[in-house]
């Protein structure tokens, strides 16, 4: 199969993720969109790795996955903490810091 198709998919995923980050207001959804962006990057890395015929791309994909997992955990912890204090996960409600 033509590897370029994977790149299209990756670009699509990244765009969906980026749009979600900008549009959605729920912290958890924003967060899922970030994960989508990271995984789109992973797909791109693996595809380019295939095109170039070396493994560098696959290695960085591994590390990206771990980084993403660590981000999930830290992010969920922060969101949980906010939820405990405020009982809402909306980004818009997090307005205490507005100038």
């Amino acid at each position, binding site marked *: 199969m033509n590897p370029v198709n994977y790149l299209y998919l990756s670009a699509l995923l990244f765009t969906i993720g980026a749009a979600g980050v900008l549009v959605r207001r729920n912290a958890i959804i924003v967060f899922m969109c970030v994960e989508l962006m990271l995984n789109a990057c992973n797909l791109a890395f693996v595809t380019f790795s295939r095109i170039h015929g070396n493994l560098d791309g696959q290695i960085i994909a591994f590390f990206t996955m771990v980084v993403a997992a660590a981000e999930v955990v830290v*992010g969920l912890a922060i969101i949980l903490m906010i939820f405990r204090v405020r009982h809402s996960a909306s980004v818009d409600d997090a307005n205490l810091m507005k100038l």
Partner: protein
Amino acid sequence: MTSLVQSVDWVAVAPVLVTALTGLAVLVTDLFLAPRHKPLLGWVTIAGLALAALCLIPLTDGDRATFCLTTGDRQCSYVADHFALAVQLLVVGGALLTALLSVTTVRREALPAGEYWFLLLSSAAGAALLPASRDLATLIVALEVASLPAFALVGLRRGDRGSAEAALKFFLSSVVATAVSLLGVSFVYAATGSLHLDTVAGGLDDVDPRLNALAALGVVLTLVGFAFKLAAVPFHFWVPDSYVGAPLPVAAYLSVVGKSAGFSGLALVTVVAFRPYADTWGPALAVLAALTMTTGNVAALRQRPDQPASAVRLLAWSSVGQAGYLLVPLAAAGYHDDPEEMVGATVAYALMYAVVNLGAFAVVALVAENRPGHRLTDHRALFSRNPLAALTMGFFLLCLAGLPPGVIGLFAKVAVFRTAVDSGLGWLAVVMAVNVTIALYYYLKWTALLFATPTTATPTTTPAARATATTAPAAPTPGTATPGAPGQATAPTATGSTVAGSTATAAREPSVPASVPHPLTAAIALAAALGVALSGAPQLILRLASGTLF
């Protein structure tokens, strides 16, 4: 077949490793430690960081490299060259001063000790790894190792709404920046087929013309993640909120070590990896530098001194402005024939900035011992209460402003300025000059505030001033609850003019501050000693600015 096993030079990685292992040790020790022994953890942390700094000594030749490929062109992933060592010294030293600052904060705010020290050390380990890494995967991982614990540190105050929201804002924007950065890395990888910085530079030299746009886009996108850590405009909006929401030492840490992670990453990717695309990132960084310093300084100018946390907010915005100066040599590197020389000026500036900014944060922490509001007005007439603290604070502020006697600040600024002029970026030099002038205003205003004379008598208080003082929300000033006119016990909420405010200045402030915690004093003394030493012998830092580091 050659063995694929890479040899590990443990001495070369020691500074990072010692920091990380101390972190693990602290975390495990905390689990089995009785609560009354928890303060020990802070001292273990400080000892670990000092040890990590000592581990830099055997590396001073700057010729160590490890984690090298055993095949092909033997690229190494970890290089302990002079650039790496200088930034590692900055990171470890910055973390050490932060740790000194934190000892009292952890106890007073009842932060979970084991977690706090572990997160601080992990983040420092990531920031120390970053300048030594020579491939894009390690760079990204190091960047994340430096950032992820920082999010948690910002949000560590349990049940505090501001802390949690600051952490969320910082976190969400940072991970988006990382994702964008990763996309950029993937484009660069697509164009060059490698992740090692030197090979990337070679690959970018002769990119397939059809991939030219892709490579250029990749180069620019990769910069985003690092520019975010450096708090360059337009990736700066998290800074004031995070600094105010975080415990004060964490804010100090972010302003110094976080920034060093950002600028060292930027220096590596631009000067080492993306050198063939200097005509793309050079102008981008120049615009970024101009925007950053202007936005930071103008916003700092607009801080009202009587607002809660205005001192921290001012330092936050001034740190954004300083980030702009840090970017100038990097931008200049894009225009200069010998870009590596430019990086030296950035490192020199960063070292200076790290010392004096941490010092300034330490004095703010000291003032907050008596008046926890972090207001600028809390600093009024500090000289009469604590002359030594006021003098050191004045010194730090003058260094940040770049005026004598803060000689080192002046020299570092001149070094940065020279890079812009040398590489033909006249307009950037002009912008920088204007910004330095703007910054003079608020730094000097703060300095003047420190030395404002406290008036002693109530009768001089004009009715108007008394009215402002009584109606305005009083700054919490424990220990000043002496009976008397209500207007005189509260620090006046300044109405903009220093002169008008000084008539009603807190005359009844305790002339000697309540017992100041020793670690805090040590931090201030250390920063002041470093600053004075560097001012006396600026050639120490300026040698960095003149030689090549790589």
